[in-house]
């Protein structure tokens, strides 16, 4: 015990990586390396001989990590995804927070837990921020489409903006659809009709 843990974080986004690394360093005696989504990922990770590897659940390069579970060379240490016994609940929490952890064979659970607690909290925060950003973008996109649909209706029917929106909303309610979907259908149809 007391030895320094070596942790590798696979993360392309620099700001996000720094936030995660800082949090980890505050929580445990550990050395943390960051690797981007480069090819040859498995080899580059193995070169650090990490105790724990953390990677975003949504990262498509995760499948490269699977090769690490097969490491069988004399200098290589096999890793397993973090699922065993008492740690099972933690693994579930980790998946929900959006982080998957690969842990070297034989590492004691009490050494893993503080790292995982920190990683889970940090990844959850990052994920929430990302979701909020995506939601904001989507809302903006939808508003643009609704504005265009309103414009089309105002021109075609000679009505004002409020009446155009009321018409969109009434149609949406009648059809059990979202206003944005009705607006999109209208914009698409109008594009086809020329």
């Amino acid at each position, binding site marked *: 015990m007391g030895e320094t843990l070596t942790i590798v974080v696979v993360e392309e986004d620099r700001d996000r990586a720094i936030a995660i690394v800082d949090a980890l360093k505050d929580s445990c005696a550990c050395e943390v390396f960051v690797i981007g989504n480069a090819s040859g990922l498995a080899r580059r990770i193995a070169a650090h001989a990490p105790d724990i590897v953390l990677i975003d659940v949504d990262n498509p390069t995760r499948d490269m990590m699977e090769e690490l579970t097969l490491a069988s060379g004399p200098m290589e240490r096999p890793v397993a995804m973090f*699922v065993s016994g008492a740690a099972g609940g933690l693994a*579930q929490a980790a998946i929900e927070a959006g982080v998957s952890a690969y842990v070297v064979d034989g590492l004691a659970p009490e050494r893993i837990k503080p790292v995982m607690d920190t990683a889970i909290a940090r990844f959850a925060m990052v994920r929430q921020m990302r979701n909020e950003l995506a939601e904001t973008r989507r809302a903006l996109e939808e508003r643009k489409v609704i504005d265009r649909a309103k414009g089309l209706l105002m021109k075609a029917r000679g009505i004002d903006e409020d009446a155009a929106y009321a018409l969109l909303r009434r149609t949406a309610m009648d059809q059990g659809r979202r206003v944005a979907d009705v607006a999109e259908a209208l914009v698409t149809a109008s594009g086809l009709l020329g």
Partner: protein
Amino acid sequence: MRLVSLPTAYMPLVDAAPLILAQEMGFAQSEGIALDLVPAPSWSSVRDMLAFGRVDAAHMLSPVPVAMAMGLGGVATSLAAVSVLSVNGNVVGVGRPLEERLRAAGHPFDFADPKAAASALAAVRDRPIVFGVPFPFSMHVALLDYWSRATALGADGIVIRTVPPPLMASALAAGDVDAFCVGEPWGSVAVEQGAGALLLPGTAIWQFAPEKVLAVRTDWAETEPDLLGRLMRAVWRAGRWLADPDARATAGEVLSRKAYLDVSPELIDRALSGHLTLSSRGENRQVARFIEFHHGTATFPWRSQAKWIAAQMAALHGADPTRTTGAARVFRADLHRMHLGAAGIDMPGASEKVEGSIRRATPVASAEGDLTLLPDAFFDGRIFDPARA
């Protein structure tokens, strides 16, 4: 009737069609269920979502549940492969540098002869050829390994590396991989991007390779038999619908949607029709049974198929060979019979066959007496007898 929502994970590939079309064409609804289709960014993610209960069913590489039962890979939850979703559908291709060398050496790119293709590759290589595949536990790896061992390539003449298909073009450009084995649409995408040329369809190596399975957790299969039956029937009917050539245009249009594969219907139709474009020079080939969702009792999870996969995995990864028989039991021929046989769907009399022994369409004993198995030969003519495995 209120529909029961069933969260189901899939990778956005052409062979996810039975799940996507089961939902989109109303086969799920007729069974009183709604598939809540969750696209996954990686195969690890599909497996984890299923293993940890985020979803109840998944589109999965056929070797994954077998490998998990053998203790390979990171996760150990017991999974059941209740149906085969698709047979065949992979392509082997080479990057531009290898393509140019093969052409210079006179290789015809006939997309048909695995022995000739292997000899041609062996003649132009100056080091082991690095193949990119989507996942370590996959039919892609099994087929490449089988092909290399039985040809001039040799098991030591190739190196297999995991590269997620969306990154394959850049891995080829960077020289990290020389060649690839992927499922559609990724082979055709590589051709469209000018990243490489197609060398062989998977079916040239094994004529009837179970590619993807419908997987559920074993305990879920036991506690939710009614839901499982409904899911299996809906997916089986979608596969039967997909086998009708008239369905192709609709299937391609639905799969191409942004929410699913987000590639052009034309590209998807290449796999569905078996009419593939091999390179940026525009060579075309028609491949019989390039991908099969229904005919030849394609959905039946033969124990012998799982045993072949287990034997391959054991040889590749040095796993304990005594675990292969147990691992083969994850192909649940029993559940397939129970849930689909009860719906009047004809089932074969046996649960194992001698893999590689069927050379032409053959009628076999079945419950209704009206079942035909399709050719399942390996390119080198060998057979795999499950009784001796």
